[in-house]
Structure formats: structure tokens, C-alpha cells
């Protein structure tokens, strides 16, 4: 009886193994319709908009079936799934993540597929094509883009005696407006301000752009502490000096969540913000019904020299390296990037289309009355996108820290940015070494037909 036991166990193990192998071979034998796994970050109405486009694609032909999944923390999941050899066929990531994915050989270059499919640069607003390209190759096609603009509360302008239809034309004027819009409680604490660079604090890295600065020279040098970036941070440092570190802290601590009716912009505690086209959805859902708002380019420090500065971002569809059906995946991406589906998607997500051609109907139907202003900014020659650096996550974190130190009056603009410069340049040099080591092999692989 005792001797029998291991044998008995062995039989069970063999049976389980056989069952597993059968199930594996079964899965691979389906020849009828290729199933494309598509992961994206969308939830709620944004996911619904994408799902509608996926359904249209699935109904339009019978060779490919796209299975859409809403995935949280998409960048990390995609990295782990790709490393594990089980990536989806299509994934929707942010354009700023493309360099690090491409350089780690996690993506399929799309040049040849695009050429074969007749997808061309001139079909897009050029900046979006640039954002999807890196080191001479195309890695993604854009989906839903956004640009940043000054959004202001007209009612508060009127109450402060300002012309509600006229936004500030320069940064100096923005500060004049700011002073007029400040309200204090009887105890002297802040009740409302015109503008706060820390609200909502999502773009701490890029203020230098409105001063004519750059974050990177495009080659080997990080330019975090360039005179323009330092000037921008000096402008930020003027806030704690004018309003007091602790008063600003207490004021901001009283703000509610961004996606809530307690958002300080909706409650009238901040009159002007830097925001993208998505603000429309938040205003619709959380702002008071009589909320009046305007959109204009965020004013620059020197409007005589440069205007219409904005940051452009886009969501981008990629084919991860090791995807099982890259051709079919591209067919789907190309479908999303054709005019009608793209307009349906961007209308559903309340954004503008990254394509050059856009129907008049799109603008008529668009619920956001200011979508045209955001689109015009994306086409501006001074529209910029985040530097295509593999160390961007670190750079961004360091800039946020530097911003925080200046905001808390713990360091001067120059000191805090010098520190960023040192640290990021060192990390970038390190990445350069990594790139020099692997570039030969990688570029050969990318150039392969």
C-alpha cells in the first residue's frame, strides 16, 4: 500500500500534464478569425468611445476580431507582459513613454507596415508624427491628443472689474490680473487668487518654455538650469515671497480633489489655470451650471518674441515586440487612424483629431465650444512636446522636487535647478553608455525588412 502511493500520485501528475498540453495545442489551432488583444488605459466614457470604434472595426470585416481590455497602470503592465513574452497585440500608451519602450526593444517599428498600408506623415498634424517617431523610426500612431491653454473663469474676471472676454496677453499682465483677483478673509488668510503655478501642479517641468527655454539640447546635454528655466523658477519663487509659504500651504490644503465639485477652479478659489481640452468634461460634471469659461494661449514672458507656446501630448497605439499578430494589429491601428473612426473616437472622448483632414461636421457636433482654440495651439510653431529622453521619468520627478523646494522657499531657483542638472545629466550619460553598447545590434534589428 505504501509503495503504491507515489505511483498513484505520478499517474495523476501525468494526467494533469496531458490535459495541460491538450488545452495548449487546442488554443493554437483556431484558423478562422485572428483575435487581437488590445490593452488601453481608458475607463468610463473614454473607454466607451474606444469600444464603439472597436465594435465598428469588428463589424466591418470578418478576418480580425479585436478584444479590447481596459487596463490600469498600463505602462507597468505592458513592460511586465512584454518581458514575460505575453504582450497584447496592440497597446495604448502615452507618447512620452515611447523612447524608453523603443530603446528597450519593447516595440515593433511601424515604418514598413505604415509604408505598405499607405499611412503617410502628411496625413497628420506634423507634431504628432514627430512625437510618434524616435531615433529615425516610427513606433506608434496617435489617437487622442491634447494641448495646454489658459482657461479662465469669466465671472471672477467680471467681479474683479476685468474684461471677462480679454485674457492676459503677457505673463506680466497675468500677474497684474492675479493681484486684482486675490481675495482675503477677515483674518488675512487667502480666500481666492487669480493664478497659482502649483494648481493642479501637473506640469512643473515645463514652465521654462513660456520663458523661451528648453529642457534638453536634443543631443547630449540636459539644459535644466538654462537662464530661461531659472527665470521661470524665479517667477515661481515669487509666489511664496508674495503670499507667504504657510499661507499658500494652508490655502492649497483647503482644495478638494481635481475630479470633484471642490476643484478650486470650479469653486472660484483660483480664477485661471493651465489645462487641456479634457477640462470641458470636468466642467460639465463638476462645475456650477452657470460656470462661464474662456480659453486662450497661455501668455509668455516675452510676447514680442514668441507666442502661442503650448505643450502637446497624445495617446499612442503601439505594437509590442513579440506580439502574435503584428500585421492584423496594424490593420486595426490604421483603421483607427482613418478619418471617420478617428473623428468618432475624438468626439466621444471630447478631444480634437490629430489628422490634418477634419470634417466641418466634427466641429459642429463637438460639445466643447473651445475645441478650436486647443487645436489651433497644437498647430502653432511654438507647440512643443516633452523631450524624448529615456530618463524622462527621473527628470520629471527631479523637476517636481525642485519646484517643491522653491515653492517652500527652501532653495533658490538657481540652486534647485543646478541640482536637477547634475543629477539628470549623470543619469542621461549613463543611459547614453547603455545606448552606445546596444545601438548597433538594435538598429540592425529595427532596419530589418
Amino acid at each position, binding site marked *: 500500500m*505504501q509503495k503504491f*502511493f*507515489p505511483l498513484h*500520485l505520478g499517474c495523476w501528475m501525468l494526467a494533469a500534464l496531458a490535459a495541460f498540453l491538450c488545452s495548449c495545442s487546442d488554443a493554437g489551432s483556431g484558423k478562422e478569425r485572428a483575435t487581437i488583444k488590445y490593452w488601453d488605459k481608458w475607463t468610463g466614457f473614454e473607454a466607451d468611445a474606444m469600444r464603439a470604434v472597436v465594435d465598428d472595426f469588428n463589424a466591418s470585416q470578418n478576418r480580425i476580431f479585436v478584444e479590447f481590455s481596459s487596463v490600469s497602470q498600463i505602462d*507597468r503592465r505592458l*513592460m*511586465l507582459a*512584454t*518581458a514575460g513574452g505575453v504582450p497584447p497585440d496592440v497597446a495604448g500608451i502615452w507618447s512620452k513613454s515611447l523612447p*524608453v*519602450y523603443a530603446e*528597450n*526593444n*519593447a516595440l515593433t517599428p511601424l515604418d514598413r507596415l505604415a509604408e505598405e498600408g499607405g499611412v503617410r506623415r502628411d496625413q497628420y498634424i506634423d507634431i504628432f508624427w514627430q512625437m510618434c517617431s524616435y531615433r529615425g523610426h516610427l513606433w506608434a500612431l496617435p489617437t487622442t491628443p491634447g494641448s495646454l491653454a489658459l482657461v479662465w473663469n469669466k465671472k471672477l474676471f467680471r467681479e474683479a472689474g476685468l474684461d471677462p472676454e480679454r485674457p492676459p496677453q503677457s505673463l506680466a499682465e497675468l500677474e497684474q490680473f492675479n493681484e486684482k483677483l486675490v481675495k482675503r478673509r477677515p483674518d488675512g488668510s487667502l480666500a481666492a487668487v487669480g493664478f497659482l503655478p502649483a494648481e493642479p501642479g501637473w506640469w512643473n517641468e515645463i514652465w521654462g518654455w513660456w520663458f523661451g527655454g528648453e529642457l534638453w539640447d536634443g543631443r547630449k546635454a540636459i539644459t535644466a538650469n538654462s537662464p530661461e528655466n531659472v527665470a521661470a523658477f524665479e517667477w515661481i519663487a515669487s509666489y511664496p515671497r508674495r503670499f507667504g509659504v*504657510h499661507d499658500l*500651504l*494652508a*490655502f*492649497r*490644503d*483647503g482644495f478638494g480633489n481635481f475630479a470633484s465639485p471642490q476643484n478650486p477652479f470650479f469653486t472660484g478659489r483660483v480664477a485661471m489655470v493651465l489645462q487641456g481640452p479634457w477640462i470641458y468634461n470636468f466642467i460639465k460634471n463638476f462645475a456650477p451650471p452657470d460656470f462661464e469659461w474662456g480659453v486662450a494661449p497661455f501668455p509668455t514672458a516675452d510676447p514680442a518674441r514668441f507666442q502661442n507656446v503650448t505643450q502637446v501630448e497624445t495617446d499612442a497605439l503601439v505594437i509590442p515586440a513579440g506580439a502574435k499578430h503584428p500585421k492584423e494589429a496594424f490593420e486595426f491601428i490604421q483603421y483607427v487612424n482613418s478619418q471617420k473612426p478617428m473623428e468618432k473616437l475624438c468626439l466621444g472622448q471630447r478631444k480634437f483629431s490629430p489628422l490634418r483632414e477634419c470634417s466641418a461636421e466634427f466641429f459642429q457636433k463637438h460639445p466643447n465650444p473651445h475645441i478650436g482654440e486647443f487645436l489651433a495651439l497644437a498647430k502653432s510653431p511654438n507647440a512643443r512636446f516633452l523631450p524624448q529622453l*529615456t*530618463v524622462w*521619468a*527621473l527628470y520629471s*520627478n527631479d523637476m*517636481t*522636487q525642485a519646484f*517643491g*523646494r522653491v515653492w*517652500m522657499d*527652501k532653495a533658490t531657483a538657481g540652486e534647485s535647478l543646478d541640482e536637477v542638472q547634475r*543629477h539628470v545629466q549623470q*543619469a542621461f550619460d549613463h543611459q547614453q553608455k*547603455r545606448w552606445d*553598447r*546596444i545601438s548597433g545590434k538594435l538598429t540592425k534589428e529595427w532596419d530589418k525588412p
Partner: protein
Amino acid sequence: MTNGDKHNLRLGLLFISPWILGFLALCVYPLLSSLFYSMCDYSVLSPAVFVGAQNYRDMFADAIFWKSVYNTLFFAAFAIPLGLVMSLSLAILLNFDLPGKGIFRTVFFLPSLVPMVCLAVLWQWMLNGDLGLVNNTLKPAFAVVNAMLGTHLSPPNWLQEAAYAKWGIIFTGLWGVGHAVVIYLAGLQGVPRHLYESAEIDGANFWHKTWHITLPVLSPVIYFNTIMGLIGSFQVFAVPYVMTGGGDGPERSLLFMATYLYQNAFDYWNMGYACAIGVALFLLILALTYAATKLSEHHIHYEGK
């Protein structure tokens, strides 16, 4: 070894094999591979390249790494003793034979059941400088002090000011002492009654009994909870990560070793460097656990001995 022994050994190993396999695959392999990757330039997706001790050299020169070590040590240095005193005192109080003690025990244990992320979000609001319950409770006290001394003091902006942020996390951690309290309570049930009775006959009061009977008998339990607290404190991650929205907190005051490790691994794609931080964390915990064991050797009273 007789044939019977060999047979028993084989059978024993067979029965324990699921655990051994799991241990080898899920503990030993990751431990050894992270040791190996800590000596590589490795980004997860591209092949690892051996670079020797470069990651460790970078680590020693990295001011941010040292900041995370300082933050972790600071947190552990206050969170462990405070947690110990708090949980032990609560356990002793909850051990009194009072009506409704079951209810009290449940009430003090309940917060430990709150998941880390919920705990972090909840305390984020409790510690809010303007609207938080903590500051609203402190405000009257500050008002009294200000009235008496003519000062203009106000309660701190807990999570926004570098000097107070870690204290915010330490207080948040104290909310979860319920598990330790339960272990102490179990230990307290094992203290022989007759020792208390004979001490009482000798005229001992509550403090004498606690100091000379309860604590020595509980010492193995205290040791266990301290070691668990030590490991837990050095791995502090979820609460500060959620409270700072994945960031480092004001002036990196909430950047702990585990957070920095995570950032390097998953945000910066420096898995090799992250592994080196992991090895450093492992060695630090190992050394402190060893030191705790050595230091307490003569102070732990095992009844079986």
C-alpha cells in the same frame, strides 16, 4: 540509515515537496537572481550586461539613496519603539477583567483590518492641514497656548512640510498596532496566575507585577513583535506611496528605501540598480535583526529552558 529510514525520508521529502518547490522557485531563486542582477546593467526588457560592482559604487555616491536610507532609519527608530509601547500598553489595559472587554478588544483591533491603501487615503484627509480632524483637534490647544504666550503658533501642515511628513506616517502606522496587541494578549494569557498571587502576598503593586512578572514572561513575544516591526518598518511602502501619489513627498522626506527601489525598477527602468538597493535593504535588515538577537539574548526569558 536503515531501509525504513530511507523510505521515510523519501516519503517525507515527497510530502514536503510542494513547499520546497515553492520555496526554491519563489524565494531562493528571486533572492539569488536579484543578487546577480544587482551586478548588471539591466532594464528588464533588454538583456542584462554584467557591470561588476558599478551599481553599488553608484549607490554609495547617490545622495538620493542616502536620503532614502536616512528616512527609513528615522521612521524605524520612532515607529518601532512607539508601536511597541503603544501595543503593549493597550494589551495590558485590554487584559483587565472588565465588563465588555471583548468589545474594547474588537474596537482596538478593527483598524488593523483596514487595507493599507484605504488607511493611507483616510489619513491623508485626517492629516490635511486646513480641514483635517487632527489639526481641528489640535487648534483649540494651540489657541490656548497662543493666548497665554502671545505667540502665533498653528498646527503643522503634516504631509506638506518636510519636518512633519514622516511624523504623519509614523502616527498613521500606530493605527495598525492591532495585530501586535492580539499577539501580546495571547502572551498575557500564558502568564501563570500563581506568580501574581505570590507577588501580591509580598505586597507588590501593579507596576511591580508588570515590571517583574509580566514583562519577563512576555519577553519572547516582545522579541518576536520587535523583529516583525523591524522588518515591517524597513519595508514601509504602501502608505507613503499612496499619500504622496507615487512621489517622494516634500523635499523627498517620504522617500523610503522600498519606494526608491520601486521607482528605479518600474519608473526609471533601472532594475539592476533596484536590485542593488534590494540587496542593501536585505543586508541592513539582516544586520539589525542579528544585532537585536544578540543584544536581547540575556533579557529573553523562555519558560521551556
